[in-house]
């Protein structure tokens, strides 16, 4: 019965060519787009805006050279151009002449970049002074950018790919699957099923399995494009990758189904899913760390499914890690998935 349900889902799905094409193509397009933009950089480079000195001297030349030596991208602009750029909010750090010396302006909205840039600018200043005075150059502490798994990330696209795989799952589960479910119920497409002996859990499990396989195909296409275009290869075992993906799909699809049980209309669902999506994203530790957050919040966040899922995915894909260190995290994902599925079965209404 489950098999039939699953097979029919696929058959009907494959008839909607447009929807199927975009589901498969969307993550690929994102990968191609972002991957190409950041192709050669090992990640976005730190940049400093350098406001031109009216009568540049030897000191200015030495500083500029030192900035370049320290791998900073120097954007040289006149004062008016620099001010305009600053006003648009595009500048993270701006180095400008002031009196006898210099001043560094940092953009409070872009502190992460600005802070790192400030450190490098100050180092460059020390180097430049040493060079001018003929003193030996101060010894710098070498910097190396690495992922926690100790493998050097080859390029930005290879960092991007697992993120795309993961976020695509979350958005499919929370937005597409749940929304389709609510709108079908709204249109009364499940009413006829309600008078048959088909158990709800089989119907739902059939849908989850269908989506799971859709994701497998989607992931396979994405991996293939990543490999062919950017030469990104999975560093870990494919079995581990598949396991994590399956767990994540199951979890976030079940999330979507569970949420759809709480909405009466598609509009209502849009609101509810955003209500869940944003905290899930914001508190996942993907955008900012929560080191300074209150302890209770940190405990809460540690128990959320998105962060451990993405972490395990990156560890396997980028660093070739085994699943050994990720048992707890994946356990959390599985627990959420199971709880969401049970809730989905309980809340599911045919009409």
């Amino acid at each position, binding site marked *: *019965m489950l098999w*039939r349900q699953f097979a*029919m889902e696929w*058959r*009907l799905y494959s*008839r*909607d060519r447009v929807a199927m094409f975009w589901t498969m193509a969307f993550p690929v397009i994102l990968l191609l787009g972002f991957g190409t933009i950041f192709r050669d950089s090992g990640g976005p480079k730190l940049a400093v805006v350098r406001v031109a000195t009216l009568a540049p001297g030897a000191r200015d030349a030495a500083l500029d050279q030192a900035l370049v030596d320290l791998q900073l991208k120097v954007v040289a602009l006149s004062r008016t151009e620099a001010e305009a750029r600053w006003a648009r909010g595009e500048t993270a750090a701006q180095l400008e002449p002031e009196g006898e010396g210099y001043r560094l302006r940092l953009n409070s909205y872009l502190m992460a970049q600005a802070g790192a840039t400030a450190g490098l600018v100050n180092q460059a200043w020390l180097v430049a002074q040493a060079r001018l005075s003929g003193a030996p150059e101060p010894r710098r502490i070498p910097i190396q950018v690495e992922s926690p798994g100790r493998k050097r990330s080859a390029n930005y696209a290879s960092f991007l790919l697992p993120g795309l795989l993961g976020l695509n799952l979350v958005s499919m589960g929370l937005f597409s699957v749940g929304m389709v479910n609510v709108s079908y119920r709204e*249109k*009364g*497409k499940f*009413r*006829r099923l*309600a*008078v*048959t*002996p*088909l158990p709800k859990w089989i119907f739902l499990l059939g849908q989850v399995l269908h989506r799971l396989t859709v994701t497998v195909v989607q992931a396979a296409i994405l991996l293939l494009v990543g490999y062919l275009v950017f030469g990104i290869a999975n560093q870990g075992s494919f079995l581990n990758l598949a396991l994590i993906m399956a767990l994540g799909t199951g979890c976030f699809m079940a999330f979507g189904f569970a949420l759809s049980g709480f909405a009466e209309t598609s509009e209502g669902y849009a609101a509810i899913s955003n209500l869940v999506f944003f905290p899930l994203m914001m508190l996942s530790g993907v955008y900012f760390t929560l080191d300074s957050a209150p302890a209770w919040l940190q405990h809460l966040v540690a128990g959320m499914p998105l962060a451990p899922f993405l972490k395990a995915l990156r560890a396997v894909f980028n660093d070739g890690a085994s699943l050994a260190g990720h048992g707890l995290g994946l356990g959390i994902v599985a627990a959420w998935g199971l709880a969401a599925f049970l809730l989905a079965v309980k809340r599911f209404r*045919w*009409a």
Partner: protein
Amino acid sequence: MTESALRLRGLRKTFPKVVAVAGVDLDVARGEVFGLLGPNGAGKTTTLEVIEGLTEADSGEIEILGLTWARNGREIRSRIGVQLQSTSLFNKITPREALDLYGSYYPRRRGTEELLALVQLEEKADAYHITLSGGQQQRLALAMALVNDPELVFLDEPTTGLDPQARRGLWDVVRRMKAEGRTVVLTTHYMDEAEALCDRLAIMDHGKVIATGTPASLIADLALPSIVELTFEGTAPDPAAFEAALGLRVEPRMDLWEIPTPDPKTLLPRLLEAAEAAAVPFQQVHIRRATLEDVFLHRTGRSLRE
């Protein structure tokens, strides 16, 4: 095996602003074709959906084939067949696939080919549901109601949207079901259909059953088995004066007067005389047997379909 196919006691269902079903008692025997007759909003669909387990009743007892929802939900679902008032399926499923799929949910099932033939959909067996005409979709819904070889079948307005030929076809299907020993509960707005198909009927209005019986007994209970009609060109005039002259009740309808009578033979000469005397500009005279329409009219003062 119990004798009763369906037994309702004190069934009530209230929506936020309407009492849709206001205390319904019904008994349907096995092998019977039972009709629910009533105007729009009478509560027919709600009654059926409560019985089918789609809507939960506020109160009342439901016994289906001797089973109850509380204890035997799955078994009830396996043994009843349902045609909803409107059946919405996935746009791109074909009739053949729909019958195969829905059939797979049941322990017992009838063959897809046989069902397609029964509702004459062989030609459209592989067309997407969304491309079927309204009547074809309706016929598919009927076939789906029979997919599990059900003992008890609920049909909600099965002939609405069918052309006259398909309508006759459905009558044949229902008669065949009866011959096969199934119990059928159907709703309709059509008097002729109810008279032609149903062994017994319940007439519903405002959520209540206002009369039950065989079509013949319901009409006989009127004690006015015939209606004489005078038809006019255009709108019928006010009958007050004529009514007084005749000494009988005259009911004006759009373009005719109706005069119910137990004895048309003696009435007719008197009537024509009075009409002549009062110079009533009528066109034609008809005498007809009273119908269920008249039963409804008589009980509620309103017409079944307006």
